[in-house]
């Protein structure tokens, strides 16, 4: 069967599914959905549908990005609009089935929104919700919409059209199209994709490689996992297009072993491509030859750096080397190689299908198109989002993300993971593009976006990132190996109340040296959290060093717990549960914490009954308490 026939068949099957007399229920079964309990929901669905004798097709799909509302289902009753239900519990499933599928009441109180055409009273359109309205879905176009394990679904929705188009063009025309689109590397550095391909195309050599970098190692980032789990073909099609443009006949996907579901779906996808003649020695009858291998990473962050990644594919320790030569000249096994990130590849397939001009219509002058972010941390609506470049942080945090939970104050937004920096609340109107983020001292990064509120201590969170980069430093070059360790030591001193005047300046000096002197991106960017932390939150560092105070009440060495004598009722709960017996006091006696014994675990605070609320957690300000237990004063 040739591609046109496969496509026809796929469209017929897709339409038949849309017009089926059976109710269709789509269930989000990505890693996030499963972690939130989608497996239980699926069990209950199957059981209830059988009990009510309802014929329904259940379709496991990927992630639509509304992680905050997981587990999610989409119910499509014949002749009715499709309705999303979120935050499900197994108890709610029988209600939805009985009320909606049996009795025709769509339960607007439980519905999240409607997708597509049609209206139901009391339920808004899903894409009119504040969380989705500002989003533009290019890279994530099929996520949550199709069965990621069925290539026909992808093809019926325009899949492999971009490849078909590319194969009718000259390789150079494909590269030119990429240049025109303005697409820049979505792994974080933002190097123009078309230019990268051109270098690789122009490099002499018969054997060339393309690599998909799916070693998503930034703590706090899950965009690539969700994309690969939800729409693997979008990425694979992009790789084929790139390989055709460059002149490569072999490709590798380097993916972290921590993503078993994504690996499984990629393997399934590649098998189905083989069956459809979309991978092999004569793709789409064009004579274009391409094969893909999957290489599982083994848990090392630096392997996301391109030269380290290639060393790892070759079977060695994943240590970076100096550039030049760049991979485009001398990459995998010394051959010209183009390494692009998962998200970049998924944009490539969309660009070829819909045209460079269409793509360049989104975004800003220098940052075209859209960017995926995993929005997490202290935010109401966590999720996977895709937004046009140039959107402000305010729109992301407040419109899409719904602001900060529990009425807390926003402190900073962290982009770029351990390689990025903090953007303080006062720069909330900063547009999100490569240049603006760099100017603010951070980076676009691969798309991790962590929201930080007033309860987070900036010294602690910087220490957190440095702990990570220091332990992930491969040790090859001295600035990174020792510089990250020294910075971490100083940060630990500051957090532990041993900070000295001059530490801030020393940190800055070290940070600049590590930035300038390190061999690869890991070391060159590791100082970013330190530098932006000091640039925007210097007062917090000074507070820790000079006043030995942690205003966020996080750094253990700088906080104390006290039992307030006017509130303690002598119930003994805290005293009985203190793991180090640091609380003295008997029944109806005001309890007292022995500050020398206290390990500041906070158990007393979490156990003190809210009606007493007698435990105070403070930093830098002693609280007046008796030295020994005294009787509780009887209220008159």
């Amino acid at each position: 069967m040739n591609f046109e026939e496969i496509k026809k068949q796929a469209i017929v099957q897709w339409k038949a599914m849309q017009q089926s007399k059976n109710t269709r229920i789509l269930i989000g079964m990505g890693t996030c959905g499963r972690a939130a309990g989608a497996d239980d929901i699926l069990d209950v669905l199957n059981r209830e549908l059988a009990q009510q004798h309802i014929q329904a097709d259940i379709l496991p799909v990927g992630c639509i990005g509304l992680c905050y509302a997981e587990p999610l289902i989409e119910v499509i009753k014949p002749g009715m609009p499709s309705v999303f239900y979120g935050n499900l519990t197994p108890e709610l499933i029988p209600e939805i089935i009985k009320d909606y599928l049996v009795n025709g009441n769509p339960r607007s109180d439980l519905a999240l929104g409607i997708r597509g055409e049609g209206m139901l009273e009391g339920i808004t359109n899903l894409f009119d919700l504040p969380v989705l309205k500002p989003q533009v879905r290019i890279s994530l176009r099929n996520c949550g919409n199709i069965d990621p394990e069925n290539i026909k679904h992808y093809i019926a929705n325009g899949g492999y059209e971009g490849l078909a188009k590319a194969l009718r063009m000259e390789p150079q025309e494909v590269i030119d199209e990429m240049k025109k689109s303005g697409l820049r590397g979505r792994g974080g550095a933002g190097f123009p994709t078309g230019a990268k391909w051109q270098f690789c195309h122009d490099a002499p050599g018969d054997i060339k490689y393309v690599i998909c970098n799916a070693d998503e190692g930034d703590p706090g980032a899950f965009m690539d996992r969700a994309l690969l789990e939800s729409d693997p073909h979008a990425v694979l099609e992009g790789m084929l297009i790139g390989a055709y443009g460059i002149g490569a006949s072999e490709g590798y996907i380097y993916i972290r072993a921590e993503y078993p579901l994504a690996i499984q779906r990629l393997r399934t996808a590649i098998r189905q491509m083989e069956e459809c003649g979309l991978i092999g020695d004569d793709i789409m009858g064009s004579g274009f030859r391409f094969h893909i291998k999957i290489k599982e990473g083994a848990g090392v962050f630096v392997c996301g750096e391109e030269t380290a990644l290639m060393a790892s594919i070759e079977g060695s320790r994943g240590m970076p080397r100096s550039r030049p030569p760049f991979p485009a000249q001398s990459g995998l096994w010394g051959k010209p190689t183009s390494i692009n990130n998962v998200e970049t590849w998924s944009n490539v397939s969309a660009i070829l299908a819909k045209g460079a001009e269409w793509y360049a219509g989104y975004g800003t002058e220098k940052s075209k198109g859209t960017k995926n972010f995993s929005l997490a941390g202290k935010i109401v609506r966590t999720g996977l989002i895709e937004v046009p470049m140039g959107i402000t942080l305010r729109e992301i945090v407040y419109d899409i993300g719904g602001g900060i939970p529990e009425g807390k104050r926003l402190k900073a937004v962290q982009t770029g993971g351990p390689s990025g920096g903090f953007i303080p609340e006062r720069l909330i109107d900063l547009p999100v593009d490569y240049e603006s983020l760099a100017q603010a001292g951070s980076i676009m990064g691969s798309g991790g976006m962590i929201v930080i509120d007033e309860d987070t201590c900036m010294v602690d969170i910087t220490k957190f990132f440095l702990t990570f980069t220091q332990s992930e430093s491969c040790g090859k070059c001295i600035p990174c190996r020792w510089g990250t360790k020294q910075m971490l030591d100083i940060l630990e001193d500051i957090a532990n109340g041993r900070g000295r005047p001059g530490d801030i300046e020393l940190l800055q000096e070290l940070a600049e040296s590590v930035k300038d002197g390190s061999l690869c991106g890991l070391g060159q960017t590791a100082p970013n959290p330190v530098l932006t932390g000091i640039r925007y939150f210097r007062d917090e560092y000074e507070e820790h060093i000079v006043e030995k105070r942690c205003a966020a009440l996080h750094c253990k060495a700088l906080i104390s717990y006290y039992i307030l004598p006017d509130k303690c009722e002598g119930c003994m709960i805290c005293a009985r549960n203190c793991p180090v017996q640091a609380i003295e006091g008997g029944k109806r006696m005001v309890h007292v914490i022995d500050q020398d014994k206290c390990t500041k675990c906070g158990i007393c605070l979490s156990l003190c009954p809210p009606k007493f609320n007698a435990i105070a957690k403070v930093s830098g300000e002693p609280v007046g308490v008796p030295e020994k237990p005294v009787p509780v004063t009887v209220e008159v």
Partner: protein
Amino acid sequence: MTNPSVVQGVQALPQEQEGTSEERLNEILSSYEGRGDELIPILQQVQQVFGYLPEPAMKKIAKFLKLPESTVFGVGTFYAQFKLVPTGRNVIKVCRGTACHVRGSEQILGEVEKQLGISAGETTPDLEYSLETIACFGSCALAPVVVTNGKVHGRMAAPKVRKMLKKEAH
């Protein structure tokens, strides 16, 4: 980086599998061609079967791939995924990613350590539990996350730890 000094006392393939372990290793190797770039996939498969990288197995892999033993050992100690000592029957992984950190994973790790009586990176003496931390599990929206034997527990809290561990023991 993995501490190479932890490879003490592991001289033979695991006792309970003696006799069959040699065959299992041969079976794994027979599906490879003997090229250097197969080293990491082979180590991954050996670890999947044996639960860790036994020293005799690494020696045999070196011979099979015609690589110096130091290279195999070097790769085995470089990657965080590889273990040179046996792991427990239940593997508890506490995510220490950024989103989990700002949502209190430090306290959760502390609680798991307290409950199991071991620190991160250690295994209980009865080989019942191993405790690991992972840099990021990629389920940040459900932070904080703990993974027990491959099952993801989202929105964890320190008081839920005891119940979670109890469930895993059986």
